[in-house]
């Protein structure tokens, strides 16, 4: 979520940043950071043995993906695309933002569902070690 703020595309930060004339990082550096986040999340899913940590690692990965959409939207400008009488400014592209809003909702509902599953499993497997769970549940 930090990335969202850094890119300044949420409704409030964009107004704030526009007023303060922010220092804009080049697109490629931001892109590299976003992909690094995705990669860290992905590696985390593999390396962490605890099921809860794996779930969180997946959340990191999805944060990276969300940030990428925000970045794509911010290519043409960073002003929140709300129709007003204001002058012609460089608006952010609303389409990827709308799309990622849907994806965020889906992502967090899946996350919630998975955490419920993890809670259920933790009753009989308090360590939540995936290797152990897997060993006892593979025929």
């Amino acid at each position, binding site marked *: 979520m930090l990335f969202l703020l850094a890119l300044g595309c949420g409704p409030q930060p964009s107004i704030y940043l526009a007023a303060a004339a922010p220092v804009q990082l080049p697109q490629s550096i931001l892109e590299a950071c976003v992909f690094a986040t995705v990669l860290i999340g992905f590696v985390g899913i*593999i390396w962490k043995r605890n099921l809860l940590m794996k779930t969180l690692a997946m959340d990191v990965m999805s944060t990276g993906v969300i940030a990428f959409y925000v970045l794509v939207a911010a290519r043409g400008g960073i002003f929140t695309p709300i129709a007003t009488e204001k002058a012609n400014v460089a608006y952010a592209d609303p389409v990827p933002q709308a799309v990622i809003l849907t994806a965020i909702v889906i992502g967090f509902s899946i996350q919630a*569902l998975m955490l419920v599953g993890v809670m259920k499993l933790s009753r009989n497997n308090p360590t939540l070690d995936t290797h152990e769970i*897997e060993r006892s549940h593979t025929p």
Partner: protein
Amino acid sequence: MTLLTIAWLTLPLFIGFSSYLLPRAGRFLALGVALVSFAYSLWTLLATPSLTLSLLDNFGVTLMVDAFSGFFILTNALVTAAVVFYCWQQNRSKFFYTPAIILHGCVNAIFVCADLISLYVALEVIGIAAFLLIAYPRSDRTIWVGLRYLFVSNTAMLFYLLGAALVYQQTQSFAFTALQDVSSNALGLLFIGLLTKGGIFVSGLWLPLTHSESEAPVSAMLSGVVVKTGIFPLARWALMFPEIDPIVRLFGVGTALLGVGYAVFEKDAKRMLAFHTVSQLGFVLAAPEVGGFYALTHGLVKSALFLITGNLSSRNLKVLRHEPLPRSLWIALAIASFSISGFPLLSGFGAKVLTMKNLLPWQVIGMNIAALGTAISFAKFIFLPSRSEVKASVKPGFWVAMALLIGGLFLANVVYYEAYSLTNIIKPLATIALGWLAYVLIFRQVKLKISHLVEQFDHLIGAMSLILLLLFGMVLA
């Protein structure tokens, strides 16, 4: 027609959520939804419309209905109806029927949508609904199997989402038509999501455990239609863009061989069926232009087989060899096995002939080996002993489901009646004979047990990165 399509598409979602409020009517509602889809699919197949809808605006939802989707929708309708009949007397609660109806609706949505984001939303909702169905018994094992499924599918869909963003960045559009001139990275990321979701090749190795550890009706739905949601867009793209076609065909051959390679050595009935699903999806992708018919045949056969194996006394084929089956169950099992091996008079024959005819020269050897492997694996079922004195302890609903699925196999036979020529008939018969011979002489005695190592959770996720690299290499080449 636009109104009709939208009404049909949204109906299962409305009904699904209202079935929570009407818990006793769950099975009736589910059956009703399946019947509506059945009527709609017949309309698409018989009237063969080519409907392209753009809802809302340029960036809105795009739908595309044609005969190709018709086959898939018909499969979905028949399999859902059969599963509802199977569960009719089992007193299942709303927590089974609600996800089942929503799953049905989202699977339908996949088969008509024509933009990347609708596809994403539908695939994710399918993941949630399938998880709820897998975890319906609420035991630790089913919850773990469901979680593993949701994990793998969600990680793959994150890659897909990244690919969709790249497509938008390059073309300012999410429609399928925008894939015409996108970079290889975007295509590779989209592919990894769909290949994993569809259970294709190495990225599909999550499938055997998930499909074999679920309850029989859930396995029937997962294997019958849900995995086809992953391969439908791939087949659609292969038909739309000649550059994508060879990649899809190559994955088809690869998965057909990989799946059947596992299936011939498998001793567990449900796991064998699951591995065989991995292989059969390859037949759909190997010749995308006729994939619809193959998917219909496979959906009917595989759900019938999963429902039957759910009623056998054991899952272990070695044990079953010494315990005679009830004759009635054996007959159903044999008919389904014959169809999937490509025996004439059943629609598996027409589907196989049609697919073999539409292969490219370099695919022929691989697909024939896969067909032989199918005959070998299903000889395991056909050669099981049976006795008419043993009574089958199954509910009447089971026979209604069988009548629907196996009757469908006989009826679908007429779709491609031109297949019945002498040379076409001899070849599958020879394949089956050869397969049985190989089974009796070699595979019945083989004690080889393939390790389950690659099916471990960490390896499944790790394999995703390898396939991604492979895809980048393939698309660049």
